[in-house]
C-alpha cells in the first residue's frame, strides 16, 4: 500500500450475489467512507479481484459461478495480499477454519449488522504495516511494549494483567476504529459462542481502571455499537 492511502478513499470490492444485501451494505451510512464496487457473480468477482487494485475484498462464501473460497485461493495464488473478509452463512466450526486457512483475514457470519461489517472493514483497512515488525505501540500517552509485554502511561509503568493487555493491544492496533463486542470476544477471548455474562464490559472497565481512574479516558463506549480508542 502506498503512502497516500490515508488520504484517498479506500477502494473495496464486495462480491455478493444477493442484490438486497449488497444494496443494503452499499447504501449504509456506515460504509460512506469507502468506495464500494459490487460484483454479483463469482466469475465477475474473480475478474475484478485479479485485475484491479483494491484495499479490501469482501467475499460471500456461496456465490453463483464460483464460490468465495475459490476466488480467494486464486487471488492469493496470484500473490495479491489484499486483506479479505468472508461473509458466510456456514456456521460450522470447520467452515470457519477453512475460510481462515485459505487466506481470509476475518470472517463474519450472516446475518450481520452493517455496523459490524464496517468496524471489521476498518480494522482490515488499517493494517498498513505488518504486526510482527512492531516492537511497541503508541497511542496518546500510552505506550505498549510488545516485547516485554509492559504498558507505560506518561512514562509510568502500569501493572496490567495478561488478558487486559491483550485487550489493550487489540484497541491500540485499531485506534479510532469502532470495535464491537463480538469482535473483542472473537479476537481477544477466542469465544464464538453466545455468552451470558458481562464479560467484555467487566474487562473493559478493569482496563479503564488500570489505565488510570483520574487520567483522561481513552476507551470510550459507543452506544449500541461498541467501543473506540481515542483521546478525549
Amino acid at each position, binding site marked *: 500500500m502506498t503512502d497516500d492511502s490515508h488520504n484517498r478513499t479506500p477502494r473495496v470490492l464486495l462480491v455478493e450475489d444477493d442484490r438486497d444485501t449488497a444494496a443494503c451494505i452499499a447504501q449504509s451510512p456506515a460504509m460512506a467512507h469507502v468506495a464500494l464496487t459490487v460484483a454479483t457473480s463469482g466469475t465477475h468477482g474473480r475478474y475484478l479481484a485479479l485485475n484491479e487494485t483494491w484495499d479490501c475484498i469482501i467475499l460471500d462464501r456461496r456465490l453463483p459461478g464460483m464460490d468465495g473460497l475459490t476466488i480467494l485461493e486464486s487471488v492469493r495464488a496470484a500473490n495479491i495480499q489484499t486483506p479479505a473478509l468472508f461473509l458466510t452463512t456456514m*456456521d*460450522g*466450526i*470447520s467452515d470457519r*477454519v477453512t475460510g481462515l486457512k485459505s487466506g481470509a483475514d476475518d470472517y463474519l*457470519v450472516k*446475518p450481520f449488522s452493517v455496523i459490524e461489517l464496517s468496524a471489521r472493514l476498518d480494522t482490515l483497512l488499517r493494517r498498513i504495516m505488518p504486526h510482527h515488525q512492531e516492537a511497541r505501540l503508541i497511542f496518546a500517552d500510552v505506550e505498549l511494549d510488545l516485547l516485554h509485554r509492559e504498558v507505560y502511561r506518561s512514562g509510568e509503568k502500569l501493572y496490567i*494483567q*495478561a*488478558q487486559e493487555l491483550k485487550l489493550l493491544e487489540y484497541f491500540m492496533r485499531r485506534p479510532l476504529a469502532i470495535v464491537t463486542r463480538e469482535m473483542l470476544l472473537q479476537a481477544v*477471548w*477466542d*469465544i*464464538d*459462542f*453466545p*455468552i*451470558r*455474562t*458481562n*464479560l467484555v464490559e*467487566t*474487562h473493559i472497565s*478493569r482496563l479503564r481502571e488500570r489505565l488510570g481512574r483520574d487520567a483522561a479516558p481513552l476507551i470510550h463506549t459507543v452506544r*449500541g455499537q461498541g467501543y473506540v480508542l481515542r483521546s478525549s
Partner: protein
Amino acid sequence: MVVALSGYHSQKLLLQQLRRTVAAERDEACSEAQGQDVPRLRPVIHELVRNEPAFYYLLQDGREQVVIGNMLHLRPVTGWRWLTWTHRTTPADHHPVIGYGAVLQDGGYFFVGIDATPLQSLRRDLWFTLAWSSIAFLLIGLGGGFILSRLVLGKIETISLTAREIMRGDMSRRLPLNGTGDEFDHLSGSLNAMLDRNEALIASVRQVSDDIAHDMRRPLARLAQHLDEATETPQPDRRDVALERAKGDLHDALEIFSSLLRLAQIEAGDRIPGSQTFPVADLFETIDAFYRAVAEDHGQTLAMSMPPPDMVIEGSRVLLVQMLSNLVENAINHSPSKTVISLSATTHEGGLAMVVADTGPGIPVDDRERVFEKMVRLDASRTVPGTGLGLSMVRAIVRLHGGTIRLDDNAPGLRCEITLPASVVGQT
C-alpha cells in the same frame, strides 16, 4: 470331462491292442505263405479259417472274386477298416469286425479282422456314462442353482421388503439377522448400522426443525410487538426505545437460531472437530482469565484447583472451553453474591473427572435431568438472560467426547461432575 478323457484314452489303448493283434496275425499269415500273392496265401488262409475262429479272413483275386475266407466280398481298399457283422459269412451274432486290408502284388486283396465287440461296447459304455453323467450334472446344477437362488433371492427379497417398509415411513424397521454370520448377515448388519445412523440423523434434523419452529416463535412474536409499538407511538424517544428492544429481540432470535444449529451439529457429529491434546490446566487458566473478574464484579469467588501440568486431555479445545464457560456462567448468573464457584479436575478410573461446583441455590432433585433438555428454563431463573440451550450444549459436548455429566447437591449449591473416558485422556 475326466470321464470323457480317461474313456477316450482307454478306448484308444484297446484299439491299438486290437490293431496290434490283427497286424501280428497278418504278419504271421504272410510269413507262413512266404509271399504276398493269392496262390501262396490261399492254402494258409484255408488252414487259418478252420483253426482260428477268433479271426476273420478274406482273400480275393484280382477280379474281386472271393477266393477263400469267412467273409463276404469287400471292395479292395487298403487300410484299417471297421465292418459290420453283415460282412461275415457265418454270423451267429451281431459282432462287428475291425481289420486291415491290403491290395496284393498280383492285384488280389487280403483282409484280416478280429471281433470288435470289446471296443464297441467300451465306446458304447463311454457314451452312455458321458450322457448320463451330463444329464445328472445338469439336473444337479439346475436344482442346486434353483435352491441356492431361491435362498439368496429370498434373503434379497427380505432386504428389499424391509427397505420398502422403511421408505413407507417405518424408520424403526431393521433387517432380520439369521445369526449364521454369513455374508448376508454381514450385509444386513451393515445396512442396519446405516439405518440406525440415518434414523438418528433424521431424528436430529426433525428435532432441530421442531426446536427452531417452536423456539423462534417467542422472540419473533416479541419482535413484531416491539415493531408495532415503534410504528404506532408518536413520541420519538419511545419509538427509539421500542426499536432498540426490537433489535434486541432480533438478536435473541438469531442467537437461538445459531445455537440450535451448532447444537445439532455437535449432536449429529461423531468425530471431534479440531481435536488436539493439551493440558487440562490450560482450560482452567482460560476460564480463570475469562471469569475471575466477572465473578468478582458479582461479589462471588472463583476458586480454581489448578490440575498438575501433566494432566492432559484430548479433544476440541474450543468446545471444552465453551462447556466450562457455560457451566461457570450458569453458576455466576444463578447464584447470589458471596457464592464460591469452584473448579477442579481429578483422574478417575483412567479417565478424567471435572467438577464445577457452587454454593448457590442449586437445582431441585426433580429438575436435575430436565434442565439438560433444550429450552427448559426453571421458573426460578426466568429473570436471568438465557436461551435455555446452555446445558443442552454442555451435555452435547460431553457426549461428543464420550463422557457423562451429572448434577448433584453440593449442600448447599449445585455440583456438576463431568466424567470423561480414558480415551479422551491424551498421552503426554
